[in-house]
């Protein structure tokens, strides 16, 4: 019995409370040991931004900054869902066209049948959930490798989009709310208010955790590090909101264009929500466990099949949301919505952000960081006037680079024993 065991000498791990210095050193040794997390994505983002800013001054304008968000939103949202599937070491190749099917359903319900926007959104998400459940059952219960199941889905969903679109026609989205998702901005005041709420919320969570842990005598991150994190978030959010609140319209007399794009809070809310699910609930813990060692998870009494199905449901559900955003941005849905590069960009985003293709490692934030890298490449090269062909090649190379970083850091970690 735990509680009646004789306590011999104090706590097992009598490590001193870490200082800022030791915290930094621990982090550095983790990086050296191959646990690099999102570091390549962040560095890549900085380098890419610097490069494009020098090559093409328009890259740094407020207008282009806002464009980056709306351009990258759909991919980042799909990538968020993919992180769950990748965490199990599975893959969902059908996520792109699943988002296309959901967008087609959205357009069909909203425009063709004339239902209100929320009915259309719910129908689209329900479609995504149903698709995910189907894929998940095929993978978990029948035991077909996810690569094959979702490759079949890739083809079949492409066909379904075509059928829903009457063999090639496109359906425009006219509903004001649906169009607003990717095309309108929050008023500057609301932008500031949301940023303040986000920072305050983050600060509250961090400080409460710090207090709770130190009250129990557990090891805590140094208080300075906690403050630095909060300050860092406040700085980044503040700067972003400030830039997005600048006037972006070429001619203010005709129309004013400023404020945080509406997709930004949508991404932020989903990011916080899924991060909470992965890091703070036992469901999330079980997802990591199944990805790390399926047999251990099974022996611990975790229903592995249910976890496996659920990640496909989450992935396709997020693909549906990505599809809605893509449809909103294009003001229409056509047979190629969710097609061409969408899926590869999304997988690329997740992997570039630091999610491992081998399972067990990754965060939802990775999808957003990786999505930012992909969006910056796409946007920057577009501004420099490169063709789509070159953009694809460069993005492909970056994806390959990210996957090699993943594989190499994994090998290094195995060698140094940190993972």
């Amino acid at each position: 019995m735990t509680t009646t065991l004789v306590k011999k000498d104090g706590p097992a791990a009598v490590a001193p409370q870490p200082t800022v210095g030791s915290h930094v050193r621990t982090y550095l040794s983790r990086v050296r040991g191959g646990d690099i997390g999102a570091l390549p994505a962040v560095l890549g983002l900085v380098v890419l931004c610097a490069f494009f800013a020098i090559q093409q001054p328009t890259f740094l304008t407020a207008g282009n900054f806002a464009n980056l968000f709306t351009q990258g939103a759909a991919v980042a949202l799909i990538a968020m869902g993919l992180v769950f599937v990748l965490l199990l070491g599975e893959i969902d190749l059908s996520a792109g066209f699943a988002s296309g099917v959901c967008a087609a359903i959205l357009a069909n319900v909203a425009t063709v049948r004339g239902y209100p926007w929320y009915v259309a959104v719910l129908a689209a998400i329900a479609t995504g959930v149903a698709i995910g459940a189907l894929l998940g059952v095929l993978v978990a219960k029948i035991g077909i490798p996810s690569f094959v199941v979702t490759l079949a889905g890739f083809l079949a969903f492409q066909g379904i989009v075509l059928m829903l679109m009457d063999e090639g026609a496109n359906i425009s989205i006219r509903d004001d709310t649906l169009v607003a998702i990717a095309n309108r901005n929050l008023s500057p005041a609301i932008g500031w208010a949301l940023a303040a709420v986000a920072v305050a919320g983050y600060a509250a969570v961090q400080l409460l955790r710090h207090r709770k842990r130190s009250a129990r005598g557990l090891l805590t991150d140094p208080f300075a590090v906690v403050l630095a994190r909060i300050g860092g978030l406040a700085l980044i959010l503040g700067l972003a909101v400030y830039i997005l609140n600048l006037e972006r319209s070429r001619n203010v007399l005709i129309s004013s264009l400023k404020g945080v794009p509406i997709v930004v809070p949508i991404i932020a809310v989903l990011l916080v929500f899924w991060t909470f699910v992965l890091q703070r609930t036992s469901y999330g813990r079980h997802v990591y466990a199944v990805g790390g060692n399926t047999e251990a998870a099974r022996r611990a009494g975790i229903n592995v099949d249910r976890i496996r199905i659920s990640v496909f449901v989450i992935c396709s559900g997020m693909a549906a949301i990505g599809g809605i955003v893509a449809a909103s941005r294009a003001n229409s849905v056509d047979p190629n919505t969710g097609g061409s590069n969408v899926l590869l960009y999304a997988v690329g985003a997740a992997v570039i952000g630091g999610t491992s293709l081998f399972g067990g490692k990754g965060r939802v934030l990775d999808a957003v960081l990786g999505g930012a890298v992909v969006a910056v490449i796409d946007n920057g090269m577009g501004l420099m006037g490169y063709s789509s062909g070159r953009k694809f090649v460069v993005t492909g190379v970056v994806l390959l680079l990210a996957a090699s970083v993943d594989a190499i850091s994994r090998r290094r970690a195995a060698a140094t024993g940190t993972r």
Partner: protein
Amino acid sequence: MSATPLLELRGIDKSFGPVQVLRDVALSAHAGEVTALVGDNGAGKSTLVKCISGIYPTDAGEFLFDGRPVSINSPRDAAALGIEVVYQDLALCDNLDIVQNMFLGREKRSGIVLDEPTMEQMAAETLAGLSIRTVKSLRQHVASLSGGQRQTVAIAKAVLWNSKLVILDEPTAALGVAQTAQVLELVRRLADNGLAVVLISHNMNDVFAVSDRIAALYLGQMVAQVKTADINHSQVVELITAGRSGNLGLPAEPGGNGTGAAPADTIPGAVR
């Protein structure tokens, strides 16, 4: 040592199709004692453990837990009784830290949120109770631990759940000398803390170092269960390889030499 064994098995039979793996097996494990379960490959040790832990149903026989007859039909039943198994291949997740592994599948929550401080504290207390001081931080990933440390975590995980009986399947098989000593010390401490421990091992040195009793399986039959003090090294080896040693074990085969009362060291061909 208490009079009634914590776990007592009687007449356990288990067949896989035409192959009878366990034949009328009896085993008792006492609280505060380490019972070593020895036997050659294929003798039925792992099958017996899986029967106890509820993974395999038994064909016949009864289980007595604390003197009460019980039926164990699933791992959940076994866990509810306080039986925990530490498997040979560990069953830890490399990508999770020590606390996360110890509570895997049975996380403490407040509402829907994981209660990390409570879990960390309980894990620390359990490790302290077992005088485990070899791990640096409870928040390090299991991947960064040595084999001995991992085994330690796996054992601590089994102890965490108010378990009464801990079954260890070859806990030292993959370990070096120093780490083996560490783990054996821990095994001994479990028993000293009042748990019943069943230790499966191939290593006679380990068996004699920590066990209070030795139970020997030979081709699916329990040939002897004796106090470690009453038996020597070579007798155990004979029990494992031949099923009998002197007056211990199976009755002598008809036409064999003598009545089975011959001293162990006079049996020709005894393996040492």
